[in-house]
């Protein structure tokens, strides 16, 4: 009985049977997955043309999808949202999602595992399922860990226009500017004025700078009054962020707003004022620019030379490279003449 050969053979047979069973299990699982996938693909292929037709027709008709095909519905609605920009069609897709998926997602948020919840949250953000907003707000209060679920909850609520996420971020000591930016960039356009009111009334420095940063990136002139108002703020960080936003927006309603910044003690403010003068070709600031070409800070001189070149042309810079009283200013003008001519080769 203790023959090693017998032991070896028994062990071999046991292992072989185990492996065979494992193989059978995996093969069966794969077959089932493929079957499910094929079934879903078939339903998708069948439902898609009818759904496209449905999107463009009477929204009171029933959604042309078999019941409980949540994966197919998610895929179909999400594919539609990915390719269309038409607001009316997008709203129709959102309404479809709301009526077909709401109860399913409610169940997932209450009983589903972590990955199912996060997946559902991504789709909810895409479909802006506002009917689930109270459920998600409560969930955000329950989730304390700073993990993907809480982050996605914030993003989803922001996409639904729920400004309570701003209060949540204000109370979180670890919240960053990029988290605020994430929120502002997702807010529906009609909620942005409310966000401005909130920031003006209760907003922290972080929230205000992030909002200015967002307006600069969005380049939407509708937000210009808020940005220009912050040029008068006592806080220099806000003034700089407002200057940055104006530079990115490429527009200022009253050029006189820039005047104090050319003389500012803060070189970053001087630099941004000069950059704005350059990008907007503000020829009325010629004397100030000529003066700032001799600024003590290299960056200010650098962008002043650029602004002079763009606004007044090469001849002005040539003249300054010879006649400016400051040695560094003459150097910078000469340097930009070389740089500028390289840029202009094609013109």
């Amino acid at each position, binding site marked *: 009985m203790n023959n090693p050969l017998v032991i070896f053979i028994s062990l071999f047979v046991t292992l072989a049977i185990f492996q065979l069973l494992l193989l059978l299990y995996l093969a069966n699982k794969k077959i089932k997955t493929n079957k499910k996938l094929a079934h879903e693909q078939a339903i998708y*292929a069948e439902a*898609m*043309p009818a759904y*496209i*037709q449905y999107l*463009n027709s009477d929204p009171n008709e029933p959604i042309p999808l078999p019941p409980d095909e949540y994966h197919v519905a998610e895929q*179909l609605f999400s*594919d*539609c949202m*990915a*390719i*269309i*920009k*038409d607001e009316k*069609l997008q709203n129709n897709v959102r309404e479809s999602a709301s009526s077909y998926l709401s109860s399913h997602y409610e169940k997932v948020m209450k009983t589903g595992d972590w990955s199912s919840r996060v997946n559902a949250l991504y789709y909810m953000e895409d479909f802006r399922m506002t009917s689930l907003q109270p459920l998600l707000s409560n969930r955000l209060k329950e989730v304390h860990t700073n993990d993907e679920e809480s982050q996605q909850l914030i993003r989803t609520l922001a996409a639904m226009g729920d400004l309570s996420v701003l209060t949540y971020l204000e109370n979180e000591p670890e919240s960053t500017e990029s988290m605020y930016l994430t929120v502002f960039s997702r807010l529906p356009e009609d909620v942005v004025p409310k966000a401005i009111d909130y920031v003006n009334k209760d907003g922290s420095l972080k929230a205000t700078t992030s909002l200015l940063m967002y307006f600069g990136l969005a380049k939407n*002139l509708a937000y210009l009054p808020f940005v220009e108002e912050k040029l008068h703020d006592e806080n220099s960080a806000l003034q700089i962020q407002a200057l940055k936003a104006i530079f990115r927006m*490429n*527009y200022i309603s009253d050029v006189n707003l820039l005047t104090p910044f050319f003389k500012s003690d803060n070189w970053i403010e001087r630099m941004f004022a000069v950059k704005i003068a350059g*990008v*907007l*070709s503000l*020829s009325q600031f010629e004397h100030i620019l000529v003066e700032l070409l001799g600024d003590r800070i290299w960056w200010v001189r650098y962008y002043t030379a650029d602004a002079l070149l*763009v*606004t*007044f*042309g*090469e*001849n*002005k810079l040539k003249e300054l490279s010879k006649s400016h009283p400051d040695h560094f200013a003459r150097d910078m003008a000469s340097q930009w003449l070389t740089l500028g001519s390289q840029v202009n080769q*094609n*013109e």
Partner: protein
Amino acid sequence: MNSLLPQNLKKYDFLNHEKLILLIDQDMDFALKIKDLFHNFPYSILLATTAAKGLELFQMTNPDMIMIDPALPDKSGFILLEEISDIARTRMIPISVVSTKNSNDYISRSYQLGALDFIHKSINLETFIPFIENRCSIKSSLSSKVLIDDLTGAYTRKHFYLTFSTLSTQYRISNESFSIGLIDFDSFKDFNTQNGSQKGDDVLTTFVEISKMITEVSPEVFRFNSDDFVVLFRHKSTEETKELIEQIADAMHSQFSITFSAGVTSWDTTTDGHKELLQLADYALQRAKKAGGNQIHIFDPLSFSKPILRNLTVHIIDDDEIVRAMLERQFSTWQTDLFNIHICNYENGFVFTESNWYTPQDYHVLLLDGVMPKMDGLEVLHKVKNNVHSQRVLVTMLTARKNEQDILHALNSGADDYMLKPFHPQEVLVRIQRLVNRLFI
């Protein structure tokens, strides 16, 4: 006679309401901003990213306004401005120079070379649309006042309307009649491409000279569009008019390799107005074109009871089936009295290039996705441009590739337009319709 006409045939009216702005600029940021700005207005923005493409589109499309940035990759925009400013002035097309630079030498050079305006690119979007409207309306207003065409010496469309009004009033009383021939040169754009626009201008000028001299009746000649003319014969029947136009065709043929087609009809007291007369002549012209060109057809109420339509196929080439389904549905709503619309779908570029999609007598619109398996959109574009040399193929990229270099590459490779995904299905259709109206009609 009205019963012969389709209810909503408004070819000439429709063209008059569309404004086309040719933007010659390689600055994609600015170009996309302008395109976005005008997408809700009745303006088409045609973009050329090189001076060569700009010149080609200027010659082909007769825009209502031109904007040129001096910074172009193949040639300075100032040189292009110098080249086209005389012709543009003749056609009363306003030209604006747009630039990120604002120096005095730039501005003065722009004005010296013939620009009407200099625009710094930090534009105020609220005032930009009224500015463009203003410039286009000046053009329309000036054009409508001119009675003699500068290039050919023919009368203008405006003169035709005045003549028609006078004759129809007089002849209604005296019970007389006149006939017109609507003339369109066959493949004139191809002729221009092969022989140069100067040779093309010679053809048009000679046509007018011959028309006035060859026949003893001295018809009145009116230039309608670049190569469209109307010849008017007083007191002549349609048969006589056909014979006289044949004489003109023979004389032209002895001098140039290019031919023309004509549609002939006559005015009598039952004719409603100039629109109806032109539409009937256009039916006959389309029949002559359909029969292979180089022919003169007389409008016959019996055989022309159904309009002759040209075939236009929209080829949707995209690997995403939902995009294909969405566009197919949208394009199936295209109602036009000018074309028979067909829609074809292809799941990738390879399937498209392997199909026998090209029929030279028909018009084709290609909607090309940028990223596809087997053969991507840019490769398809190169193949189409290398193998098919026709003005009847319009290529539009519809892609998620937003990179400036990709857009430039596609436009420099010959794409006529570039649209981004995600898209507005209705807007895609409208933009294609506008381009078709400008390039194919």
